[in-house]
């Protein structure tokens, strides 16, 4: 390696003849005018070729984001709506009842309402239409059962 470098140093520098240098400079150094239309045409062609390459990437990126957002929303919805039921403790019964099952009119539905209607039905006294709890046109044991089921409903008791 050292010997090669020494040989290169010893070689005389090559120089082209002055006339050749001037001719080559005149050939390639001259400015060639490019019309503006050609420039524009090149730019348009370049845009045509380059733009389609960028668009699919953009679409893919948005598609991925949309899919991920949908998946996240779905997971959250499942978690919120379909989550395991939390244990609930007993709470005092609400005295808020508006309904016709409140046979004795004391503001709450309990077994005494059913019991009172049952006594009316069994005693064969005059039965009022408003005691037809299930709307079947007759006042009978089915209406008593309806009141009793309303009294024990957990929905009303929570």
């Amino acid at each position, binding site marked *: 390696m050292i010997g090669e470098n020494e040989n290169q140093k010893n070689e005389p520098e090559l120089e082209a003849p002055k006339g050749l240098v001037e001719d080559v400079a005149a050939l390639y150094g001259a400015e060639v005018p490019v019309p503006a239309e050609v420039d524009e045409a090149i730019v348009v062609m370049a845009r045509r070729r380059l733009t389609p390459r960028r668009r699919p990437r953009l679409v893919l990126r948005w598609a991925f984001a949309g899919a991920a957002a949908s998946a996240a929303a779905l*997971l959250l919805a499942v978690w919120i709506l379909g989550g395991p039921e939390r244990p609930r403790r007993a709470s005092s019964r609400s005295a808020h009842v508006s309904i016709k099952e409140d046979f004795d009119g004391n503001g709450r539905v309990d077994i005494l309402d059913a019991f009172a209607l049952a006594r009316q039905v069994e005693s064969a006294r005059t039965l009022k239409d408003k005691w037809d709890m299930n709307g079947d046109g007759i006042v009978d044991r089915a209406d008593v059962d309806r009141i009793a089921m309303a009294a*024990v409903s957990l929905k009303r008791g929570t």
Partner: protein
Amino acid sequence: MKILQGVVFVCVLFAVHVQAQETRLDEPEAQAPVRFEAVDVYMDSKDEPLAAYQFEFAAETGEIKIVGIEGGEHPAFKEPPYYDPAALSKDRIIIAAFNTGKDLPAGKTRVARFHVQVMGEADPEYVVKLDVAASVEGKRIPATMTLAKGEPK
């Protein structure tokens, strides 16, 4: 764009984390020992014949599911009482019954028996709350309630 991706990623991570926690919470329950027991409910109306009652039964501690309900020992309340079917498999229920006949129990009588499934080692603590007890005329009467553990069938 990157912010949106970040938000979505965090949402997914959160959902997965919560799901994993719930799965972990469920694991001990699935492995916990399960046993069954019966709980008798007594009502004492003293000298007054009992024609109707309504009460609430629940487990204040422990984890249970109510799996069955029987009526009382007296013929007037032998039939299963009224209850909300949705209460089965839960730890709370409202029970009610009445009888318009003349043959009614007085004094202390068993009005219902609950069959419960107990999960875990802990002994559940049951509570009962009387809503109403009534005489044959439908008038409220004072009554007391007690609980006793019985043998499951």
